[in-house]
C-alpha cells in the first residue's frame, strides 16, 4: 500500500490560511488503511482546523467527504457539485489523488499529506518500506526481500561492512540488514548457492524514475482503435 503521513497541523493551517470554504476530501483506499487520510482522519482534521480557525477569529466552513479511490475520476465525480461551491479542496489522498483532482477541477487542490513509500504494516502503528517501485523486479533472485528498497545503499552484492553485531543496518539502527536477511532466506530455501556463484550485474535504472516520468500502456485495453 501507499504509506503517507499527515503534514504537521501548523503547515496545514498555513496552507489553508487564504481560504474560508474548503472541502476536506479523504480517500478510502491505501491512506485510510495506513490511518493518514481516510474518512476518520477527515473528521479529525476538520474538527481540529475548525477549532483553530474559530479560536484565531478567522472561522472556516468545511465540507467533509471521502472518495472510494481518489486516483480514479469516477469516484471523484460525485463530489463535483460540492467542489463547485468551495474556494479550495484539501485532499487527504496520496499525491496521486491530489494530482488527479487538480487536473479535473479548476480550483486550488491542496495536499494534507506527505506521501512516503510503498510499505507493509509491521504491526499496529508501524509501517515499513519494502518496495521501491524500480520497474525491474528482482525479488525472485533475493528470496522475496528487496535490496533496492530495504538496503540504504541499494547494494546488489551485499552486505556491506557496516552490519552491526546484532544484524541490524549501520544506517538505521532498528532496521535488519536486508542482505543478512536475504542470505538467511535463500539458505532456508536451499538457493544460497545461486547467490554465491553469481555476481549481480549493475542495475538498469532507466525503468526507475531516474529514467524520467513513467507511463504504462496496455495496447489491448485501449478503447480507441
Amino acid at each position, binding site marked *: 500500500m501507499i504509506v503517507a503521513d499527515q503534514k504537521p*497541523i*501548523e503547515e496545514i493551517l498555513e496552507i489553508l490560511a487564504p481560504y474560508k470554504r474548503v472541502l476536506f476530501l479523504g480517500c478510502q483506499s491505501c491512506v485510510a488503511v495506513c490511518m493518514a487520510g481516510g474518512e476518520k482522519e477527515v473528521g479529525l482534521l476538520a*474538527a481540529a482546523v*475548525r477549532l*483553530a480557525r*474559530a479560536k484565531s477569529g478567522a*472561522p472556516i*466552513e468545511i465540507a467533509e467527504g471521502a472518495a472510494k479511490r481518489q486516483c480514479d475520476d469516477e469516484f471523484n465525480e460525485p463530489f463535483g457539485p460540492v467542489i463547485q461551491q468551495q474556494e479550495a479542496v484539501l485532499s487527504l489522498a496520496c499525491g496521486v489523488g491530489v494530482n488527479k483532482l487538480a487536473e479535473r477541477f479548476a480550483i486550488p487542490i491542496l495536499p494534507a499529506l506527505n506521501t512516503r513509500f510503498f510499505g507493509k504494516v509491521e504491526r499496529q502503528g508501524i509501517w515499513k518500506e519494502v518496495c521501491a517501485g524500480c520497474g525491474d523486479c528482482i525479488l525472485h533472485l533475493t528470496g522475496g526481500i528487496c535490496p533496492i528498497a530495504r538496503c540504504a545503499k541499494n547494494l546488489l552484492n551485499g552486505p556491506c561492512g557496516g552490519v552491526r553485531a546484532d544484524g541490524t543496518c549501520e544506517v538505521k539502527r532498528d532496521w535488519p540488514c536486508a542482505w543478512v536477511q536475504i542470505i538467511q532466506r535463500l539458505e532456508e530455501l536451499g538457493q544460497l548457492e545461486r547467490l554465491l556463484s553469481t555476481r549481480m550485474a549493475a542495475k538498469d535504472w532507466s525503468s526507475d524514475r531516474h529514467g524520467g516520468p513513467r507511463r504504462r500502456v496496455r495496447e489491448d485495453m485501449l478503447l480507441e482503435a
Partner: protein
Amino acid sequence: MNNGFESKIVAFCCHYCAFAAADLAGVLRLKYPPDLRIIRLPCTGKLDTLFLLKAFEKGADGVLVAGCLEGSCHFISGNLRAKKRVLAVKNLLERLGIEKERLEFFNLSSAQGERFAQIAREMTERIAKLGPLRSSGRCPYDRG
C-alpha cells in the same frame, strides 16, 4: 467561583468506575458544580479522539475523561489506551492554540464518590480560571 459564566464540561465516564462513582456521589448527596455533562462509555477504551474534538467543537469549554485505576480496567488495558489518546489530543490542542488544560484524564474506582465530586470541582475551577473557550457569542460554525 464560576468567574461569571457557567461552563460546559463534558465528562466521558467509564461504566465500571467513574459512572458508578458519580452515581454514588449522588446517593451520598455530595455537592458538586452543575457544569458537568456526563456521557457513559462501556470503557474509556471506547473513547475516540474524534469525540474529544467534537465535544470542544460543539461548545464544551472543558472535557474530562475518567477511567478505572491503572491495573483495574475491566477490559485489561482500555484505560491505558484512552490515556494515550488524551495525551495526543492535549498535544494537538496546544498546537491549535487552545489551552491543553481544558482536557484531562482521571483515574478512579467505583467506590470513590467523594473523589468524583472533587474531580468535578477541580475541573470546574480550572475551566473558570481559563474562561470560555470562545470569547464571545455563538460559535460561527456551530449549527447545533
